[in-house]
């Protein structure tokens, strides 16, 4: 299925957010996620189903002012 990951069109076989993170290589990285502009906490990733066209944001700690 086609979804958007951090602004890039991406094909994934995953059905849930947790599966998608694994498939996309995030492994044990410290990340936070949002689907369609809504925050999805780590505890809800297993239950968060993905659908065609979903917009997934995956962020990590970065420098800031």
């Amino acid at each position: 299925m086609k979804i958007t990951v951090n602004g890039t069109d991406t094909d994934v076989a995953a059905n849930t957010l947790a599966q998608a993170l694994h498939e996309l290589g995030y492994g044990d990285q410290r990340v936070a996620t949002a689907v369609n502009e809504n925050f999805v906490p780590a505890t809800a990733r297993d239950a968060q189903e993905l659908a065609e066209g979903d917009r997934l944001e995956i962020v990590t700690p970065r420098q800031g002012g």
Partner: protein
Amino acid sequence: MVDFYGTQVDSRLMLGTAMYPSPAILADAFRRSGAGIATVSVRREAGGDRAGGAFWDLIADLGVKVLPNTAGCHSVREAVTTAQMARELFDTNWIKLEVIGHADTLQPDPFGLVEAAHTLAEDGFQVFPYCTEDLVLCDRLVQAGCKVLMPWGAPIGTGLGLNNLYGLRSLRAHFPDIPLVVDAGLGLPSQAAAAMEMGYDAVLLNTAVAKAGDPAAMAEGFARALEAGRLAYEADPMSPRDMAAPSTPVLGKAFLE
């Protein structure tokens, strides 16, 4: 000591973590300045790219409090979602709330800022709002649940200093019990000292330090200025006057005509 939402911090310097020439220089700037709070952000990362983890390790080694921001957010929804992601990533309820209203000046959007502050405070966040020195806006932010205010000195990254001394002084007088932090626009330690002399509780810097020729030395310079300015404030400065007044006694001067 400054009290931010019940947390005592013994430095009056909040230091940003962006734009340093190297991670080692960033760490040196924190060490030499004694800054007690580091501001950080959240940004996209590709799978397998470990930059976020490496940065997090660097910040954890500094041993300072972390204040995540919502930098670059232009809407309430974007800022709220970013804050929620930051809370999970950094495991803190603190959030430096930025809702930008103008692309050229990076001026806060006062309307969006109040709405986002209210939403986040209701959700248990401890909000540090990046705001202007507008009294009415700051009143609304306090009503929304903010227990810290962070007015700009000048637009972010300009180094112009304290552009509206009257406005900043009024804010201090109007909110004697709210910690006030000058956030953004400072370029020189003298400007930070001036903020302290006005009774401000802290300043937040990034560009002034990171873009100096010697960032660590500049960070230390700011730390000393903050200490000097605060001491002056606590020492109850003399009142200025228009006419000269001799400091050496007139009485007893030799009569030599």
